[in-house]
């Protein structure tokens, strides 16, 4: 099992946001997490990436390793990647420089040789084609002045360059028009491999038309309250979350993963 989350709790002060999440994701699988606003989806993503704002309890194993004990940079090196819902703008840090530094930091810790500028440029050009970004993005500061769609594409570009084992996409589809959605989904699909898993957090069925999930989970009030196959997403699209938010995990335990 690539990722095992057991009884994960996360709180900021007295506000408990995750209240016992259980989830298993095997290599090669795509899991969608859906659910109403405030149900804890983004918190789950942030906690997995190592955000330090939360008080955390529970257990998360990534390839058998205690993920919660690792710093954010060590998680990146281990192969965890989060595509942010709202990527931060960083004036004064060039996109190209940042990306090369990120890749080389990760490669160094994975025991791979670092790429020089020319080697990196060749790789970046190839990956930029996947997300239909032109080179002018590279000379700009990280996300500074990017449109919403450009920021999302930049996230996917970073993912294609860093080649993670586990990619977590936090509402990567939100705010995208249909063309941008197609481009982003194309970039993500290009990365699907038997040794790579993805957790796709989304509000809408729309993205799942392009990116067909193996499992769909519904989060409400800090727990996964229902799990199913891709048809669950269609059902949610039809009926909404209204009746789900009343349910508790004990009413309908989450069936997890795609364990044989």
């Amino acid at each position, binding site marked *: 099992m690539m990722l095992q989350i057991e009884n994960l709790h996360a709180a900021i002060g007295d506000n408990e946001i995750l209240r016992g999440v259980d989830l298993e994701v095997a290599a090669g699988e795509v899991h969608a997490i859906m659910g109403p606003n405030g149900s804890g989806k983004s918190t789950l993503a942030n906690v997995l990436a190592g955000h*330090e704002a939360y008080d955390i309890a529970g257990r998360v194993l990534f390839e058998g390793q205690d993920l919660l004990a690792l710093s954010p*940079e060590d998680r*990146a090196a281990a192969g965890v990647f989060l595509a942010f819902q709202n990527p931060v703008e960083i004036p*004064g840090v060039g996109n190209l420089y940042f990306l090369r*530094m990120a890749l080389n*930091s990760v490669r160094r810790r994975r025991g791979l040789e670092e790429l020089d500028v020319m080697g990196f440029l060749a790789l970046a050009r190839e990956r930029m084609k996947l997300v239909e970004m032109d080179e002018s993005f590279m000379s700009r*500061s990280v996300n500074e002045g990017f449109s919403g769609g450009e920021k999302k594409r930049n996230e996917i570009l970073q993912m294609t360059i860093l080649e993670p084992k586990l990619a977590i996409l936090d509402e990567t589809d939100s705010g995208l028009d249909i063309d941008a959605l197609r481009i982003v989904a194309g970039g993500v699909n290009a990365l699907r491999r038997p040794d790579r898993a993805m957790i796709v957090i989304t509000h809408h069925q729309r993205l799942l038309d392009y990116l067909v999930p193996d499992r769909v989970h519904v989060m409400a009030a800090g727990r996964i309250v229902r799990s199913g196959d891709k048809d669950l997403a269609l059902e949610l699209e039809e009926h909404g979350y209204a009746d789900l938010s009343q349910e508790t995990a004990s009413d309908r335990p989450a069936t997890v993963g795609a364990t044989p």
Partner: protein
Amino acid sequence: MTTATSTATSTPEGRTGAISTVAELLSRLGLPSLGPGPPWLTQARHESAEWAIMRGFPTLKDEDWKYTRLGPLLDVPFERAEAGAGHRISPATVDALTIDAASTRLVFVNGFFAPELSSITELPEGVTVTNLASVLAEGGALLEPFFSHPFSEFDHAFTALNTCLFEDGAFIHLPAGALVTAPIELVFLSEAHGSPVVSNPHSLILASPGSRVAVVETYAGTTGAITCTNAVTQVVLGEGAQVEHYKIQDETDTGFHLALLDVRQGPESRFSSGSVALGSKIARNEVRVRLEGEGAEAAIDSLYLPCADQHHDNPILIEHAAPRCTSRQLYKGIADERGHGVFNGRIIVWSGAEGTDASQTNKNLLLSDHAEIDTRPRLEIFTDDVKCTHGAAVGALDEEALFYLRSRGVPHEAARALLTYAFAREVLDLIPSESLRAHVETLVAGRLLTDDVGTGARSDE
């Protein structure tokens, strides 16, 4: 590089050499060793000594000195620098401090001109670039107005002491319409080969109407030397003249640096100053700009980076004294460890200066719980029809940006360094000359970036 050896033993904890009055200091330092000079200069030196004695040293009660303690400076038994220290400086030391080996450069060691380390390339006809003492030795009647003027309410004992004690400095004169394209480099080195020494360089940059020049002042010191530089640079711009001024303050961290950049601008003239403060134990980098002619423009940018126990004080006075002038200030400070940075910026819009457009921005980054920033923007407006904006901010690194970088694999320390350098870049990006910008970027990157980050952060490759 030489190091001071004998001084530390002669003054345990300093108090033996402590000075309490200007008169005491003057009697210790004695009068200038340059010889008599023109009679008006002798007169000016005497008058400034009297004024300084009467005025006394600034104290924390003085509005413009309230953040800078002079105790550590007055405790040091400074002696007057001797001429001839230049032979102890290797040309390689100077080369490392200059931006372009082919440029015109004047080098001063402890305030004295060092011709053997200087070089003057071909200059347009009528342009003079030399040392001030050589002009004064020939009478220098033209220079009298720049020294024989009454002290104003903005002056203090140190500017007067500079007039009284200066040994030498740069003299740059551009006739009307002259254009000097390559930056002229002025290098001021502090060197103490024994006792702590004080030097008082005084430079004059006179840009006649329609002329244009760029000047870089670099202040540096030899490692371990206890020195005090008390420098004054006067810049006068005629109608339509353009002067770009840069300053790199990278004195040794055992040194003291007190400086005044005093600028007067004629109509439609354009003055810009970009400075970076890296060195000194205590540094006070005062800038005064007086916009005297209609339509003049001034842009003053600065980056100060106090760390360890450094103190960097930035008093600024911009006087709008004519209609339709524009002034802009961008000061950015990064204080680390126990560093203390001060922005004390004052804009005065005098009566009659209608159409003034003045802006002042001060942003600071605190990298340590023990670092300190004081920021004090001040506007005094005595006329209607003006546009003045000012803002000041002090903050820490953006935690969300840090998390973003780390989540991509960038190690914590490197991510901090990268964001810190990015904060500084806004000021560096304002330097138009590519070679000068690269030179300053290397200095700043050397301070802010870890080896892990490397200097590649300087550009977008």
